[in-house]
């Protein structure tokens, strides 16, 4: 089992040197032969293999022909997809640690051939396109008010001269945010907490989901500034009376509440730190959960379409094969079959496993 992405990468790189033995599928009814391998692992002619199988790029036998039998299932399949060279990987080189700019990326896997061919036809190979002229030219300067996007690299942040102390930011936070998010980010009225210390590792599948917030979950600090300037306070978003300086101050206060460091020594914000875009960008690289992210690699379950006498693990009873072993919704005290009973009896926190929508 792995805990951080770095360890997964190490595992998959180790597998690179030992794994070529099972990269070859002995699937005899596939007419296309695997001739060359990418990195000694993946069939280089994957496009041909997919096309010969009527484009069924998620068919179990097709994936096995391209990646090898061992690489395609469950956790192992998921870990194998962390190698950007894997035709089924959504990672790019930059997604492993965000590269030198820190802004992680993902891609449409190469094996999703249809998507790439369609994009090529509609765009890359379209050498005849000439604009119809139905639009009106506009200058970037005219978008000064509308363009409030800040990206993961911090592009779009206010000038470093803009900002306020963390203490001043805290005062603004108490005034405009605390009634819904709590004075120290603990949450209120069913709205999101902004600072919790919850472990994100699952101890039991039936335990309540851990609360995710800025310090224990969010990969980027700049996201916080972009988001609160864009949407908060809820009833009057992007408020001019708060302004860039105010939004930066509040960002600083929330990051301080989450104990986010700004350097290798673990230096945290003090109340009189002047919080501006430079301080924010320092902290952007020290978000505690940043190394625990990877691209969405679903689907990672590849079943055969079984029709008769299917194996136990695909039949009811949590894999026991006994269809009469099941879990039910709880009943109300009078015995009627009902729904959302824990919520109605005020035993559980409401929601779909996370507070706030």
């Amino acid at each position: 089992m792995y805990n951080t992405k770095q360890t997964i990468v190490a595992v998959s790189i180790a597998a690179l040197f030992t794994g070529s033995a099972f990269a070859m599928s002995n699937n005899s009814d596939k007419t296309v032969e695997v001739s060359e391998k990418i990195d000694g692992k993946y069939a280089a002619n994957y496009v041909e293999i997919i096309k010969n199988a009527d484009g069924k790029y998620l068919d179990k036998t097709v994936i096995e022909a391209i990646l090898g039998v061992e690489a395609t299932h469950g956790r192992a399949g998921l870990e194998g997809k962390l190698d950007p060279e894997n035709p089924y990987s959504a990672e790019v080189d930059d997604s492993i640690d965000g590269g030198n700019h820190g802004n992680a990326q993902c891609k449409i896997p190469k094996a999703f051939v249809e998507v790439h061919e369609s994009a090529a036809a509609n765009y890359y190979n379209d050498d005849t396109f000439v604009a119809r002229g139905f639009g009106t030219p506009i200058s970037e300067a005219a978008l000064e008010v509308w363009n409030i996007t800040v990206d993961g690299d911090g592009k779009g942040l206010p000038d470093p001269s803009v900002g306020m102390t963390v203490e001043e930011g805290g005062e603004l936070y108490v005034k405009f945010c605390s009634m819904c998010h709590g004075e120290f980010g603990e949450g209120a009225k069913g709205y999101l907490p902004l600072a919790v210390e919850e472990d994100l590792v699952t101890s039991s599948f039936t335990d309540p989901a851990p609360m995710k917030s800025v310090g224990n979950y969010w990969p980027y600090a700049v996201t916080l500034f972009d988001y609160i300037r864009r949407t908060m306070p809820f009833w009057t978003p992007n408020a001019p009376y708060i302004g860039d300086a105010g939004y930066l101050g509040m960002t600083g206060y929330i990051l301080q509440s989450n104990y986010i460091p700004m350097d290798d020594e673990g230096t945290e914000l003090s109340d009189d730190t002047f919080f501006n875009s430079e301080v924010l960008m320092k902290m952007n690289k020290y978000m505690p959960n940043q190394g625990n992210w990877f691209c969405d690699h679903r689907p990672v379950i590849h079943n055969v379409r079984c029709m008769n006498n299917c194996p136990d693990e695909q039949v009811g009873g949590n894999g026991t094969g006994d269809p009469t072993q099941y879990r039910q919704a709880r009943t109300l005290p009078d015995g009627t079959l009902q729904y959302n009973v824990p919520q109605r009896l005020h035993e559980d926190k409401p929601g779909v496993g996370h507070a706030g929508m």
Partner: protein
Amino acid sequence: MADKIEEKVALQTENSRNQGRRAFLKGSAAVAGGVVFSQVAQSSSGFDAKKAVAPYAGQPELTEVLQDGPARKTLGFGVRKYPYGMPSPFEKEVQRRTLEWLTPDSMASITMSPIHQLHGIITPNGLHFERFHGGVPTINPDDHRLVIHGLVERPLIFTMDDLKRFPSISRIHFVECPANGALEWKGVQLNSVQWTHGMMSCVEYTGVRLSDLLKEAGIKPEGKWIIPEGADASGLSRSLPVELAMDDCFVAYAQNGEALRREQGYPIRLVVPGCEANMWIKYLRRIMVHDVPMQEREETSKYTELMPDGTAQRFSWYMEANSVITYPSPDFKMQGPGKYYVRGLAWSGRGKVAHVDISTDGGRNWKEAHFTSPVLDKAWTRFEWEWEWDGSEAFLMSRVTDETGYVQPPMPQMRNLEGTNNVYHRTAMVTWRVHAWEDEKSGGLVENVQY
């Protein structure tokens, strides 16, 4: 270019028609086979009226004379009583609904479509599910603009009339919140398909290809990401890789033949077929072409999936193939042993539905259902399967296989791999337990259970 698009539209229509026809022929061949078999077995010739009604033999006959009701004896209402027509008052229970305990307010909340009460593959506009992050604005289309800027040769601004001058396309697609099914991660909570699968709808959209608009502005080669943004209070943004944007996305101004409803983004929204509904930015006003993704809150803090070991998945785009039996389902009660037509919906974010199989024994054995609707790309597909229920306890499940070869997994497999803290993309099979007819209190009840 215009020619190419028309050709592709025509192709899709032709394909869809063929697909529909193939499904129909397959269905009728099966029926014809049955007829041939019984003809041979009983050596009869042609339709036998007496044999046809044999199942009614011995049942008591109603003899009370039927009387005319008020509808027959008085005039109905005239034209334009309702300049914009509404459903019959007897359908008033067919509504989108929400769970009041789900969210602390109604502006950042969700409603579910009553999919157990819908027929075919089109969701009426008034029953389309709703999901807002900052309430619904009422925007005057004359004042609304779409801007395309960033890494383009020529930043452009468009009025709504400008957009309608472009070549148009109409497509039927499902739109699904990735949290659809989220309530069931930790076990069964809710006994209705509206709650378990209602965070989705399927409508016909009309609009302009996004690739046409991006090319119109001269998108530059270094523009690898598209960042669309809404004009509402949430200013919602997501980052789309350019391949996805250029594949089959479009900017829609119409839904089921009329303008988009405000709840769905009036006057314009982005359509990202097959992908999370969160990416289908409503009230679209700005598309920034960029070199890197934005890491917006809706693609980092939310709409990402926490795994059991504490790692998390990001940039989740495609919705996996999924299916559900809508009849019988927990909103219905069986009416005694006998013949039932098991019906439901199947869909895939990666293309067309290829097969739907039905199990009545909790997944051990499966029979293929046939399709009763056209089979379209990234759209709801209706399936149906004839079931002779003997009245004993049954465990009904549906399983979709899409044209990419992906087979919908059972819940334990998904749970063991992905845990139960994902929130999003709970796309494994569900199970309806049909209580034995002989059970005293609960006989014939259809109950949502989980393996």
